[in-house]
């Protein structure tokens, strides 16, 4: 078949990229080879626009066993234990087919984690939808939530935390980011790097079907009105098979028979085999006649580009084939030797006794195009809005509107569709600042959270990047965990647009600055570009997944008020920053001005102070103050509690809306016992921490003197009704 310009473009390649392919091969590729290049050179697999900037991230410290570049990141949590985790996007497929898109997003990220020898112990997700009024939103929300639940519930890994947000920026391009966290022995981590020549390359798991062909290329282009036609490129998930595959792999990993292992994710058999050979500086030869196929008559092109789920590629030690096959037989999974490692540094594909593709590995990897795209700096906007110039509203009315809004509502409707308790180690479930999962059979736990703040990032990407790292850090601190490391999912628009590239570059600088200051490195991640439809790009949405350690003895801390007449303190200074706040957005539909400033020194000091108080048993409950400001955070502490709070207006109050809705950073609320008040005040003075009493807990009522008084049962209903009515 003659490779025409049209064919090149259909493969998502630019004509100059095609010239480079011919140069690297020193000939024209055939159709199969073109397909392989397109799969490896697309944005999703090659990181061609992002690599240059990703280098800036802070990725190493003494806790990092494996940073970015592997299937997942690995951190050391002491006692020979390691935590393996990563977040990944499945935005494009989920918009086209929400249930399967979200389900296979979960499946894919789980494979990334158990490929490395870890048993997955927690799932998290960050999902962003268009405005609730948008016709598509309801269907997408229902589909995505049941897809996430459908996969996690069946495979039996608890879905313990997440965030769900609505904004019209996602009307035509939703975000579905899934994160998986696993536990491994520090000295039993498996990598994708091939070693040795003539070793068996083994295909295990499901059969290869015609689903998901060119999925990665789809994820590397913008949508248009014909996106619906892309449905066949979405993969179909089978969590039951993945459960079998996971158990079989973990069983085999107890032995020393695996040299390297790689899951077949985006670009399936192509990227997994190239990746293993590239990392090992070797070649790989596959016999495609051996590939287990779901349908008869599948072509090499289809086999190499299929994104059928629940498949793995393993390179085995010599003579271990029979031993390994027994394990996969037990689990009723395919196990076929389909090739071997070679010293040719090429990928060579044989089919029906003919060589059907023969490509140097480096042409597909290190020599793939890299772009330093043009990017524009983004200015911090000057403050424009003065609350005094806006139409007056009663405080109570504003609170009721915000606390029952789509974005501030309780997410019980969602989390009740996820099994949060399976595996029996979930200490703190969804709904708090972070979830807490016990390390099985040990007296320690990890805390996990996932966060984003697209509005801040849109206004000033660098501050937004910094802020979201800090929020992740605060959420872990609030449950008594020492933050260890993060994974990031960078969701952006079209990188060929210098404005978007500017958002990306500056976000990374912000993330880097905060990570470095807090010694909170990035160990894994994913970039998702081209989130937009018909040239309309989404808000820059970096999503941060954080992991922290709750060391022994485990102290259970959450945000729910625990007693009566306990003082509630606000730690950190309140300035009343309303630009980019939930209050301005929900009440006045204003989205202007700069995001709140991030002061890393205060963040660090305040966080360490809270952690110290928790360790010293001085805290009954703790909560991070974030979107919605002080009043929303206080109300959240009452939802699900038997106690409310009587809030006192501070004496130096200049404006009630600024004080209670301002989104100043670095703040926490803590409930302590009266008898410890003096002690805590002394400690904060000694450590130079700003704190003030905001009120005292009381039975049944949430109250701000002279402004609002609500029974906590009603408060619960106000906070819960939105989803159930939607």
């Amino acid at each position, binding site marked *: 078949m003659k490779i025409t310009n049209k064919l090149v473009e259909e493969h998502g390649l630019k004509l100059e990229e095609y010239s480079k392919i011919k140069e690297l091969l020193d000939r024209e590729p055939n159709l199969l080879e073109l397909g392989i290049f397109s799969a490896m050179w697309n944005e999703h697999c090659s990181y061609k626009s992002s690599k240059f900037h990703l280098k800036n991230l802070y990725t190493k410290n003494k806790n990092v066993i494996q940073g970015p570049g592997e299937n997942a990141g690995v951190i050391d949590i002491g006692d020979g234990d390691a935590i393996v985790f990563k977040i990944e996007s499945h935005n494009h497929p989920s918009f086209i087919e929400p249930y399967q898109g979200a389900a296979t997003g979960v499946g894919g990220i789980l494979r990334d984690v158990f490929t490395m020898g870890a048993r997955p112990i927690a799932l998290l997700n960050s999902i962003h939808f268009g405005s609730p009024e948008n016709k598509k939103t309801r269907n997408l929300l229902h589909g995505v939530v*049941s897809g996430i*639940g*459908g996969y996690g*519930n*069946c*495979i*039996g890994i608890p879905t313990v935390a997440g965030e769900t947000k609505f904004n019209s920026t996602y009307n035509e391009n939703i975000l579905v980011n899934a994160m998986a966290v696993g536990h491994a022995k520090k000295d039993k981590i498996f990598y994708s790097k091939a070693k040795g020549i003539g070793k068996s390359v083994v295909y295990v798991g499901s059969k290869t079907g015609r689903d998901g062909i060119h999925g990665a290329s789809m994820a590397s282009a913008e949508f248009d009105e014909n996106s619906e036609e892309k449905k066949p490129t979405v993969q179909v998930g*089978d*969590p*039951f*098979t993945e*459960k*079998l595959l996971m158990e079989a792999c973990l069983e085999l990993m107890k032995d020393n028979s695996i040299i390297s292992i790689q899951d077949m994710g985006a670009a399936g058999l192509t990227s997994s085999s190239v990746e293993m050979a590239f990392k090992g500086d070797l070649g790989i030869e596959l016999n495609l006649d051996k590939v287990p196929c779901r349908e008869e008559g599948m072509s090499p092109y289809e086999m190499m580009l299929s994104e059928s789920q629940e498949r793995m590629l393993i390179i085995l030690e010599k003579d271990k084939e029979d031993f390994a096959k027994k394990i996969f037989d*037990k*689990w*009723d999974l395919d196990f076929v030797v389909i090739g071997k490692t070679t010293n040719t540094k090429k990928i060579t594909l044989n089919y029906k006794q003919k060589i059907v593709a023969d490509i140097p590995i480096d042409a597909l990897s290190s020599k793939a195009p890299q772009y330093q795209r043009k990017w524009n700096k983004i200015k911090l906007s000057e403050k424009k809005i003065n609350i005094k110039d806006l139409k007056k509203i009663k405080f109570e009315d504003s609170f009721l509107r915000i606390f029952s809004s789509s974005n501030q509502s309780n997410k019980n409707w969602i*989390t*009740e*569709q*996820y*099994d*949060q*308790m*399976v*595996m*029996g*180690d*979930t*200490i703190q479930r969804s709904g708090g600042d972070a979830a807490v999962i*016990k390390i099985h059979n040990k007296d320690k736990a990890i805390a996990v959270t996932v966060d984003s703040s697209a509005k801040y990032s849109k206004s000033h990407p660098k501050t937004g990047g910094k802020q979201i790292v800090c929020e992740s850090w605060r959420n872990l601190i609030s449950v008594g965990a020492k933050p260890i490391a993060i994974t990031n999912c960078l969701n952006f628009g079209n990188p060929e647009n210098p404005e978007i590239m500017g958002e990306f570059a500056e976000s990374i600088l912000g993330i880097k600055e905060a990570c470095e200051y807090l010694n909170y490195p990035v160990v894994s991640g994913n970039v998702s570009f081209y989130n937009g439809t018909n040239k309309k790009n989404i808000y820059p949405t970096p999503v941060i997944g954080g992991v922290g350690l709750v060391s022994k003895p*485990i102290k*259970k801390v959450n945000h729910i008020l625990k007693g009566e007449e306990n003082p509630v303190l606000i730690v950190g200074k309140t300035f009343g920053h309303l630009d980019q706040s939930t209050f301005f957005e929900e009440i006045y539909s204003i989205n202007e001005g700069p995001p709140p400033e991030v002061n890393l020194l205060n963040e660090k000091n305040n966080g360490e102070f809270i952690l110290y108080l928790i360790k010293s048993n001085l805290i009954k409950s703790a909560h991070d103050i974030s979107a919605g400001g002080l009043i929303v955070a206080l109300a959240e502490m009452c939802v699900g509690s038997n106690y409310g709070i009587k809030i006192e207006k501070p004496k130096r109050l200049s404006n009630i809306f600024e004080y209670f809705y301002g989104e100043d950073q670095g703040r926490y609320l803590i409930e302590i016992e009266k008898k410890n008040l003096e002690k805590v005040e002394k400690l904060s003075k000694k450590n130079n921490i700003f704190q003030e009493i905001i009120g005292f807990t009381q039975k049944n009522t949430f109250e701000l003197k002279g402004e609002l008084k609500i029974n906590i049962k009603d408060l619960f209903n106000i906070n819960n009704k939105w989803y159930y009515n939607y």
Partner: protein
Amino acid sequence: MNSSVIVFPGSNCDRDIAVALEKLQFKNRMVWHKDSDLPKSDLIVIPGGFSYGDYLRSGAIAAKSNIINEVIKAANHGCLILGVCNGFQILIETGLLKGALLRNKNLKFLSKDVFVKVVKNDNKFCKKYKSGQIIKLNIAHNEGNYFINSENLKKLEDKNLIAFKYCNQKGEINEGSNPNGSLNNIAGIFNENKNILGMMPHPERMVDKTISSEDGINLFSSLLG
């Protein structure tokens, strides 16, 4: 006490059950679904999960498996059998327990803590609880909406074969405290000999104070004899 936990492909609460049993000093064995020999057991547990992917219908394929024949034999000889969640669904599919488990009333997977009332403690599974005791357990299922025809329902009631009923914190059994639409708020039932218990809530998820609570522990300790 010797216990066996049956492991089907797709079982996912097998480890959790084993942890609970071992905590109470049961001598526990995991039994793979392809085995046709069942170790001598005083208690057999069929755990939760998605056996064989729950394709066709929840529990339907497991009810035709190799090992289940052995379980049925043991049950007919009076061995104690506990089926939790998917285990309950499997016991229904084998016919060892009567009735059916339909899709939840709201047609969604439902995972939350619920209160259940221990109806009576005059049986081997509940004797460490008080009759009428209210305990908090966790549910997580898609098909837990118990149904039985009126004739058989009368039998269950007359013969005192309802083990647990969903209720609220105060013990009230009504529509508001029924999470999934189950007939008469039924959360668990016995066979006529009361050596088989099937229940949707997960007692094994409530056996550790550091993690959740200990409300489920008495079910296992009751069985110790």
